[in-house]
């Protein structure tokens, strides 16, 4: 097995292991170290890093564990990622968490925060309010204050102040990570045969599961190896996959899609790529983080920003990646995702861009149906574009 394949195998094992092995390794190396969990979509991990803590992205359990206890606490009509994330905690797999932050992305997540608070009296559980009035002239000030609030909590829990210097150093580290991930996406767009959708997904997802220093090194090595990969371009349609901003489709679902098309861009784990440029290092680092969240960032159905009309943003994503078509997915029971899907589909229709609309659930295990739909879709397009 060559080095690249070994790396991707290891990453898959990491992503599919609900015992969070990289976190446990870090804790073994950093006795007494504190871990800060955050739910989807975005959390300024730099703040946790600057406090000497390990930020950990909690994005559900996929199909890796059975949801039992969480079902008794959360109503049945709630999306799967909310319950499987809670199950991870209820089953003791997140016992190492000192702080859990749940951003106000949607009604289900915000309400789940109450359940976490009641369930884990020893954990500090917080809702983080990112502005939903992103275009307001007051949003940056407000968010700077909100980030400082989270910072105060982490200082309290960690027992060590977050200096501006430390925060700047953390920002620089995460800037590097974002730059490397942008490189991964450039490769996806320009030479998608070099990097499958599952592989690029593993590269992004793992960022939230291990220390960023390690992840940067990993990305650097992968980017070095990729151009030498002995693979040939195939005749496949190029699509954008939209709808993976929060709940994550199973890896096997992505595999089924990539069998029929090249996914040249997507919004999978968009929170880890939310900020699209470097966060400036000069000036107030807290403010720079807030400003970047608002003004140097991507889009998703859970952020309201009139300057970023989402359907237009999707069209732009399609245009800039040279895609011919789109797969517009939504997680089952996801209110914001399902609502946005209607706008997306209508806009694509109006723009004459072929698209496939689908629903998924993180715990899905059978993909024949998806496979068939995508294949038929791709074939009809190949025919059309031929």
């Amino acid at each position, binding site marked *: 097995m060559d080095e690249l394949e070994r790396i991707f195998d290891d990453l898959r094992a990491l992503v599919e292991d609900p015992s969070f092995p990289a976190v446990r390794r870090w804790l073994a190396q950093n006795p007494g170290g504190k871990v800060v969990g955050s739910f989807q979509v975005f959390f300024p991990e730099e703040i946790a890093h600057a406090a000497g803590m390990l930020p950990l992205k909690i994005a559900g359990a996929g199909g890796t564990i059975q949801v039992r206890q969480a079902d008794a606490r959360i109503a*049945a009509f709630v999306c799967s990622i909310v319950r499987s994330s809670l199950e991870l905690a209820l089953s003791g797999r997140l016992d190492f968490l000192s702080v859990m932050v749940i951003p106000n992305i949607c009604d289900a997540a915000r309400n789940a925060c*109450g359940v976490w608070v*009641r369930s884990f009296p020893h954990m500090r559980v917080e809702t983080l309010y990112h502005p939903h*009035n992103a275009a307001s002239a007051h949003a940056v000030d407000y968010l700077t*204050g909100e980030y400082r609030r989270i910072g105060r909590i982490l200082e309290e829990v960690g027992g060590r102040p977050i200096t501006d210097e430390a925060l700047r150093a953390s920002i620089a580290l995460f800037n590097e990570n974002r730059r490397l991930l942008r490189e991964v996406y450039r490769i996806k767009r320009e030479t998608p045969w070099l990097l499958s959708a599952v592989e690029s997904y593993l590269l992004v997802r793992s960022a939230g599961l291990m220390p960023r220093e390690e992840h940067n090194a990993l990305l650097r090595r992968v980017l070095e190896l990729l151009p030498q990969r002995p693979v040939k371009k195939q005749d496949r349609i190029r699509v954008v996959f939209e709808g993976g901003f929060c709940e994550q489709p199973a890896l096997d679902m992505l595999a089924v899609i990539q069998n029929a098309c090249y996914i040249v861009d997507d919004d999978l784990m968009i929170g880890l790529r939310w900020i699209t440029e470097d966060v400036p290092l000069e000036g107030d680092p807290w403010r720079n983080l807030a400003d970047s969240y608002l003004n140097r960032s991507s889009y998703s159905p859970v952020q309201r920003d009139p300057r970023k009309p989402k359907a237009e943003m999707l069209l732009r994503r399609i245009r800039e990646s040279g895609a011919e078509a789109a797969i517009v997915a939504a997680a089952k029971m996801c*209110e914001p995702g399902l*609502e*946005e899907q209607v706008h997306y589909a209508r806009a694509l229709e109006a723009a004459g861009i072929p698209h496939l609309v689908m629903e998924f659930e993180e715990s899905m295990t059978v993909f024949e149906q998806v496979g068939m739909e995508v294949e038929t879709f791709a074939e009809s397009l190949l025919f059309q574009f031929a």
Partner: protein
Amino acid sequence: MGTSAEEILGATRREGKRLMDLWWQEMTEAAQTGRPTAYVFAMGSMAELLRTFDFVLNFPEITSLQIAVRGQSQAYIQTAEDYGFSPDVCGYVKADVGLQLRQGEHPYGKVPRPSLVVTSNVCNTYIKWSEIWEHLYGCPVFVVDLPGWRGRDSADLDGETFHNDARYVLGQLQELIGLCEQVTGKRFDVDRFREHLAEANRMAELYHAVCETNRHVPAPFNAVVEGVTYQGIAHLYRGSPEGSRYFQQVLREMQERIRLGMAAVPDERFRLVLVGTTCYSHFRRFVELFASWGGVFVHSTYMVFAGGGFVPGFAYDLSRPLESFAERMVTAAYWGYTGSMFYQQDWLDDVVRRWHVDGICFHGVKSCRTVSTGLPDVREWMRVQRNVPGLFIQSDLVDPRLWSDAQVKNRVDAFFEALAAHKAARR
């Protein structure tokens, strides 16, 4: 004032109906004349501010629930689903989309198009809902972003967080005022605004007094039946003299009922709180299932969070109207969440004691993740930590397809049997 049961029971009901009709008349006229109309939501409506600009206020949650009470929601919802909305999207949203796609033709009148949409994030679905109108009409949408409950320690949020939030909200209000001026061509009149605040203060005081009358045994009103009307009027007429007058009348009637020993549910046996909302497509049936056991709803979280944020002790400081408005709004958001949505056990605890409650009905509503997601958990918490029995049932607000009569009835019956045993054991 007459004292015959007929007259007393009827007075506020008649007045409530008159005010509701008046609102529909105003909306229908606006649909014809094009008078500026603002679409707003129950929570964080900003009615006091918008009234200053003479907007007609459309509350789509109310029009949606009225479609359901009229027994027509399925057809409207179907229209929205045919348009592309998933069966899993909030039924209020879909009933309204159906209404919009029918050019505003409602069983009670006609809904005008929006000149402006003002929403808050107290329910995040509001924002998505607003974006639908934005797509349909290209109207301006303003989100007044109200940061709210932060976690366990929210009750004693440090001053810094509160001030940060209040500053943000104040800034947004100023931006909203600018937008209102643009849309209506009117200048903001702070004195008129102050008058509306004063009316809201009066109404809030009376509203709380009305809620308090239900601490009496037997309860003079059913928080689910009459409560819905009170809620509706509180929204539609918040900040107006008609609104305050109405609640004065309600209070008088409740006091009179108490004096005469009249009960909302004859032979009251069990006093209940409803957590969540009722099912409007089966409204009468819902109430009857409980009333037939002598069960009366003495309070509901709905009367709290949907109460437009009438926090206990609510009062605007009229000497600094805009600042105070912003601060109250932030307080209301904090309190709405802790008091009745996400972290409601302390509020429930208090109501159970002060309203002499025997049991809690948790109604999980598929449409509404805002109020329903964590209900099973709260129910367990109240049962285990406070020994208060709770019933968990599930259906919807407006989607009749989600109501399963036999299932709900079975659970309700079993609950009352258990409740009787529980009550006997405590005696």
